């Protein structure tokens, strides 16, 4: 069991990271930390993909005329993750802009504080 875990250490890391990320996203009240958590979770998945594509002892996926039948690592997950990263960047940027907007409205990044402030503001209306 331990040996298998050690052999698959990237996956173990990915899972641990994922859990950390999701926990940060869900448990922290600070909006910035939530976004960071989201990114950690995302990165964990990226790590998972990259680890999946890697095959120990194989070459990088470049066609080299010198070795026409060389065995490569799987390049597809890396390519996918590039897209994933771009997506994550966009989402993060968007989320940050919203956080900024909220900060300007409420003067805090604390989600619970925002809910409290909002209920007060709503009563005023």
């Amino acid at each position: 069991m331990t040996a298998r875990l050690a052999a698959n250490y990237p996956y173990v890391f990915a899972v641990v990271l994922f859990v950390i990320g999701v926990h940060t996203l869900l448990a922290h009240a600070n909006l910035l930390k939530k976004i960071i958590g989201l990114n950690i979770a995302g990165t964990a998945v990226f790590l998972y993909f990259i680890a999946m594509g890697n095959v120990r002892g194989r070459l990088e996926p470049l066609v080299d005329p010198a070795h026409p039948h060389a065995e490569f690592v799987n390049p597809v997950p890396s390519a996918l993750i590039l897209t994933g990263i771009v997506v994550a960047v966009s989402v993060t940027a968007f989320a940050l802009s919203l956080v900024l907007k909220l900060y300007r409205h409420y003067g805090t990044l604390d989600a619970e504080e925002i809910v409290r402030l909002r209920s007060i503001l709503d009563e005023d209306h």
Partner: protein
Amino acid sequence: MRITDHFPLTIVVGTLLGAYLSPIVGHVRRRWLPPFAVGVTLLALIQAIQLNIRVRDCGELTYQLGGWPAPWGIELLVGPAAALMVLVLAAISTLIAVYCMAYIDHEVAPHAQSWYYAAFLLLLAGMLGMAVTNDLFNTFVMMEITTIGACALVAAKDSRRAAEAALRYLLLASLASTLILLGIGMIYMITGNLNLTYLTRELETVWRQYPRLATTSLGLLTLGFALKAALFPLHVWLPEAHSAAPTPSSAMLSGLVVKIYAFSLIKMNYVVFRPILGIVAPLRELLILLSAAAIIGGSLFALVQDDIKRLLAYSTVAQVGYIFLGAGLGTPSAVMAAFFQIISHSIMKTCLFLSAGIIAERTGRRKIALMDGMGRVLPLTSAAFTVAALSMIGLPLLSGFIAKWHLFLGGLEAERPVFIGLILMSGLLNAAYYLPVIWRFYFVEPQVCPVIHGDPAGDAGALGAPGSWPPPGIRRRILSRLEAPLPMLLPVVALALACIVLGVWTGPTIAHLAGVAQTIIGGPGR
């Protein structure tokens, strides 16, 4: 290749281009934006109709991007189900775009409008892409486009409520995306394929080696899609997002976005992961239980709302439960009911949101307690709202009833009559929160004569802003006799009529959906 051969692609790419072009169009002349958006959606609609005809006549259509054959290249596949979904998406969003022509100034600031339309079309493109793609990773990308577009549509309204709702929506939807991506990774790991057809084929043999990975993958995908489609305990983001957004966005979100995720979930569960359908029965059982909770819980929450848009949002939570219930039961009639509900609820909910929007725009009222006498002030709008609401309740000869009826039959086929009682109860709960609104419309005298929303531009109300369409001369003549600008009234009335037509003349739809259900679950259609 003829141009029509490219339609599975161009319907997505064209809309995407429209999204990217709209900032430019808006920059050149803001007045051109609304008709431009309508044009783009209309183009998508035409292609969707053509696709449906093609699929009906020639069966499934495939399209290989770049000409790379299937397991390597990205493949688009338009089967009966996808064609139908595309049609619903294009048709409803065309109507919403038409509605926007007159409405947009009311809730979206002028400088944000070009971005609003960009997000609108981006969202549509993402959903269309999700419907037609036959590639798992491509589904993810399109889903992310959808998510960002949807959140942008919520955030477009410059209010703190909208920003907060959008952020919460974005965070949870992204979490869902991450889960889905993880699921994609797992299934790719064991099958080595991203093309859904090949993936399914591979899974047939390989799942025995990795049963846990396969089921975990499906579980993650289901959880992710359920979170995005707001299945009951995961719905927390929905009411606020759907009610704080500008009305056309609410209609788009409640009417379409939720559906495309539900559609994807059905596709994943029944088509892609069909080989392991047997061993994930507990998952489906959970889905059924949660949808039952959604049907009742959503309605109960809706009962206590005092804001009409929040009421409609909670009602969506309940109605989405029907889709999942149908999907979970998994008999031919139940799956058919799920699809019928996708169509029917898109129409009903869009109609409800848009008419609530007219009421808000004309009278400035959103609280249900202030809806007194609306039937006199805005007769057509109220009538449309009433038709759609009655359809929600499930009165016969309206589309909502047909969905419920087939769900009943599905419950019988699955031999789980308890859900029949559940749906009936939900119908009564629907009545309990929709009928008081209708009652206020027609049987309570307006306490204070509602003020028609004044706009500096004059008699055309909010439409009268200098940059709107069509030109003022014609507009004034037509509109002086109408309760609301024609572009707003037209979609609402059309949707209400669609509710009736779909409820009265169901033969062709049912026949088509029977075929769809058959392709989905592989069983004999009814």
